[in-house]
Each structure stands twice: as C-alpha cells, then as structure tokens.
C-alpha cells in the first residue's frame, strides 16, 4: 500500500500510515475562532453547532466508514445527556470532566452491549433493532420521571467552573471554547483512526464484507469496536449538550434526533471527515433562521433537499464541491486519476 514513498494527499492514496494535516484542514478551526471574536451574540447557536458536529462525526465513523446503517444513534447521545444531567441534578456531582467521563463510560457500555448483540444482523433487521433500542430508552426516560423529569425534562443541572477557573457564562463564551476543544480532540482522534490500518479495514468491510472475511479480518469484532467508539463519542456530545443547556429534554432520544442527525450528515457528505463539519453548520443555521418563522416550509424544504441529494448528489455538499473542483482542475491534471 501507500505506506512507503512520498504521500501526495491522503484523499488520493486512501490509506497512509501518517498523513500530515494539510493547510485547508485548519480552515474550520480558524473559522470557529473568527466566529468567536466577531459574532459574540450567536455563541449559543455556535456551541450547539459544535456539539452536533461532534455527534455527526461519531455517526460518520460508523455510517460513512464502516457502513453500519442506524436509526438509533440518538440512544447514545441521549444516554450521555441524561447521565450528565442526572449526576448533576440528583447526585450533586458538578465537575464537568467527571460528568463527561461518566457519560462516555455509560455510552460505551451501552455501545458494547448493544453492538455485540445487533451487529450480526444487517439491513432492515439492523435498522429496526437500532430504532427499537433508542425507542426503549425514550420510553424509560419518559416513565422514570423521578429520575429524568419525564416529559417536563430535567432541570436544575448545575456545572462547576471548568478546572475551578472558567465559569459557564450567560453568553456562552466558556461553553463555546469548551465545546471547541472537545470537538478538536474528537477530530484529531477520528482523523488518526480513519487513516490507520483499522480505518482501512473498516472501509474494506463497508465495500466488500465477504472479501474481508476471506483475508482473515475479524469483521464482527471490528464492527463492535468501532460501534463502541462511536457510541462513546456520541455520549460525550450528549453530555456537552446537557452542560451547555443546563437542561435535558426528552427530545435527545428516539427516532427524531437520529433522523435529524442523519439528514445533517447526508447534507454535508457521508463517508468523508469534513462532511460532518459542513452538514450541521448548514442545517442548524438554516433551521435557526427558517424553522421559527415557517415550520411547514422548513420540513418541505428539508425533505425536498434530501430527495434531491439522494438522487443527484450522492456526496452531499462536499461531494458537489469536489466535483466542481475536479472539473476546474481537469485541464491541468487529467492524467492523475482520483482514487475515489
């Protein structure tokens, strides 16, 4: 494979052992910092977007790279959110890092338990199982109102200042930076993962499962592992949402948040690292502007957009951008064929 010799770009070679971070990959982070300094009145929305990017990144890992189709990824997001919320509101653990760690651990446990059970199935059965799991959690959260607040949501979540120094302020400044750091770490991790042999194996499983069995890859355990990793990340994202909102509502569980997330990822472009960045940004900003004024048109637009993307633009926004760039640069470098 391309482990030896000069590496031109990770996208062209598919698998490299140690890809350097290209300059363009710093752009999202520069944009995020610029956003922080120029648009302070939108920081609450900005923080939410960062959390959803992390969540979308975790889905991208299993859907885009490993090819596991799920309608139940909100199970881990919701579990993380409720873990952090319950720890704080009912048991008085207010340290943000402890909450994050607990949420990650719970989500990982659920991930490994359910993953080990359901990942032997596929297609409709898998879809149904993931949906059933998140629906069960929804029912539990709804009924166990003593612990979760039920339909009214869980309020009274308090979060201590980060490291005892940075308090969560009203304008969401601390929250934004906090989420940005979490997302950055998550991004570094996922990036490392997908360019590793493990990532290459996942892509192989997605593209041709039978052949991966034939070359001796432990397909099932790889899937369980990546499912658990993804669940952990989703749990962390959920806990971040709780800490930023200081509230947990039932809308973190069930079919709806999973569907929304899927839409975001598809819009951005599934199976590519930065699709998870573009999708939530576009979706949440559009939702912020449109959904409040015209809820009916919002759904109409999203639905139509989804159909169009599936029929005509498989790669989402980034896929389109890719095609245009390729069309622009074709006269110069038509000889160098793209790997994907």
């Amino acid at each position, binding site marked *: 494979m391309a482990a030896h010799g000069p590496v031109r770009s990770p996208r062209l070679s598919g698998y490299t052992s140690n890809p350097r971070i290209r300059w363009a990959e710093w752009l999202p982070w520069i944009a995020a910092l610029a956003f922080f300094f120029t648009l302070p009145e939108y920081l609450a929305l900005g923080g939410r977007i960062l959390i959803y990017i992390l969540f979308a990144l975790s889905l991208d890992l299993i859907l885009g790279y490993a090819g596991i189709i799920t309608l139940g990824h909100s199970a881990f997001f919701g579990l993380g959110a409720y873990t952090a919320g319950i720890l704080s509101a009912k048991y008085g653990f207010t340290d943000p890092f402890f909450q994050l760690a607990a949420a990650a651990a719970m989500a990982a446990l659920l991930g490994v338990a359910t993953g080990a059970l359901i990942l032997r199935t596929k297609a*409709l059965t898998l879809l*149904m*199982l993931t949906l059933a799991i998140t*629906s069960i959690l929804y029912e539990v959260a709804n009924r166990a109102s003593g612990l979760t607040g039920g339909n009214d949501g869980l309020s009274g979540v308090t979060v201590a200042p980060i490291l005892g120094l940075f308090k969560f302020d009203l304008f969401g400044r601390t929250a934004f930076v906090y989420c940005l750091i979490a997302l950055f770490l998550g991004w570094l991790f996922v990036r490392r993962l997908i360019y590793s042999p493990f990532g290459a194996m996942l892509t192989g499983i997605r593209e041709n499962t039978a052949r991966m069995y034939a070359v001796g890859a432990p397909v099932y355990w790889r899937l369980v592992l990546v499912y658990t990793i993804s669940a952990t990340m989703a749990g962390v994202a959920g806990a971040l949402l709780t800490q930023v909102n200081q509230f947990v509502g039932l809308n973190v569980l069930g079919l709806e948040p999973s*569907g929304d997330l*899927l*839409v975001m990822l598809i819009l951005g472009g599934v199976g590519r690292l930065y699709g998870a960045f573009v999708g939530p940004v576009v979706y949440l900003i559009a939702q912020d502007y449109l959904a409040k004024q015209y809820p009916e048109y919002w759904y109409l637009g999203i639905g139509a957009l989804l159909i169009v993307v*599936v*029929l005509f633009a498989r790669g989402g926004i980034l896929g389109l951008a890719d095609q245009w760039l390729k069309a622009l640069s074709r006269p110069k470098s038509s000889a160098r064929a793209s790997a994907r």
Partner: protein
Amino acid sequence: MILYVISVGLSVTMGLMGFINLAHGVFAMAGGYILSTVMARLGVPFPVALVVAFASVAIASILLERLLYSRLYAAGELSQVLFTIGLIFVSVAIARMVYGTLAAPITLPDYLRGQVHFVGRDFPTYRVFLIVFSALIIASLWFGVERTRWGAMVRAAVDNRGMAQSVGINTRVLFMATFALGSGLAGLGGALGADILPVDWAYPFEHLAYFLIVVAVGGLGSLRGPFIAALLIGVADTACKYWVPEFGAFLVYAATIVILLWRPMGLFGVRA
C-alpha cells in the same frame, strides 16, 4: 387488523420488492385524508370513498414509482432509507399546509356505528366490519400471490430479476403494478382505520415504528409473517397498556428485539 392491512401493503413493497420504504405511512395517511375529504366535501358514501382512496393512492404511487422510486431499486439501502425519509418530510409538510394540525374528521355511516349481537355478546359493528374486511383482503392476497400467474411472476422476478426478464416477463410493469398494489393497500388501510388510528399530519412519523416492527418481525417476503406479527404486536400492545400501563410501549420494543435476535430474518422470513 388495521395495522395488518397497512403493513401487508408494506410487506408487498418492502418484502417482495426488496425496497426499504419508510414512507409507507405516507400512503396510509393519504388514504385517510382522501376518504375524509371525499366523504365530507362530495358526500360520497363510505364504501365508494374506500374504493376512491384505494384507487387514487395506487395511481399516485405509480407516478412516484416511475419518477423517483425506480431510480433507486439498484441503489444501496442507505439511499433508500434517506430518500423515503425525505419523502416523509415533504408529505408531512404538505399535509400540514393543506389540512392544518387537526385530525381529519371521519363520520361513519349509521350501519357501522351500532352493536352486533353475536353468541350472547355485543361487539361494535365497525370493528367486526374491519376484521371481516381484513380477512377478505388477506384471503384474496394469499390467493393472488400463491395461486395465480401474476403471483408466480412476481415471486420469480423478485428471486432473480435478470432471469425473469430473460424469460419474457416485463419486470418494469410488474414492479410498477406491485408497488401500486402495496401502496393502494396502505391507502385502504389508512382509510379503513381512520376512526381508530386518527389521521393527522404527523401520522407517517407516529406509526412508522409500528409498521416497521410488523414487517421486520413478520419477515420479509411472506404474507403470513406480517399477519401473525400484526396480531402479536396488536395483542401485546393492548394487553400491555391494559395491565401494566407504566411500561407503555416498552414491552413491544423489547419483544421486537428479542424476536429479531432469535430469528434475524423475522418469524417467517424466507429471503436471506
């Protein structure tokens, strides 16, 4: 039983044709709305309105199939899932714009409202009618798929489309007709059950899980499967809400998981 009529349609499109159609509830909703509109505005009697609901949903679905669905037969499951979710969004938005947020009003004809006296007990006529009617549909469907030329052709085309084509079956038309039948049944089910499962704009979302459970548990590609699954789920759900209301829908989902882990292809699934 309603669940059955709706989901048998789904079993036809999803099981027989192998297309993951999450937008099936949309057709059921459309059926309910059409019934309500036709009866209220034009004063059409209930049986005729049922036929209208079935026919118009079937025709509309042919349009959709030609324009959109047929492009995705060969596409991956993910595309199909996403596409049908998009369809749900669009239809939900349209339903809400046209009909508002209230449930569609249905007035049953007088002869379906009373009670039926049977073996010393009273049964609501409407429900008896539903059960008898559904049984008729089941019987005719079973006959159609298992015993007629059309059924044999559909089964052949599903098993091996290329082979079916090469022996001279026009699979394009066949799939179109099958899809129309499945969607029409959904429309019929939605219309029939409008009094029990109220039709409103969120209908495709609310009942999506139930339809899917019935098909997944019953197994793709069989008619008997969804029937038994619908009965099971219906009875379990009602019993659950009656005896242990604090669990809600919990047990239905739990049962689904157990059954699917035990028999991943569903109770009567035939296709691997």
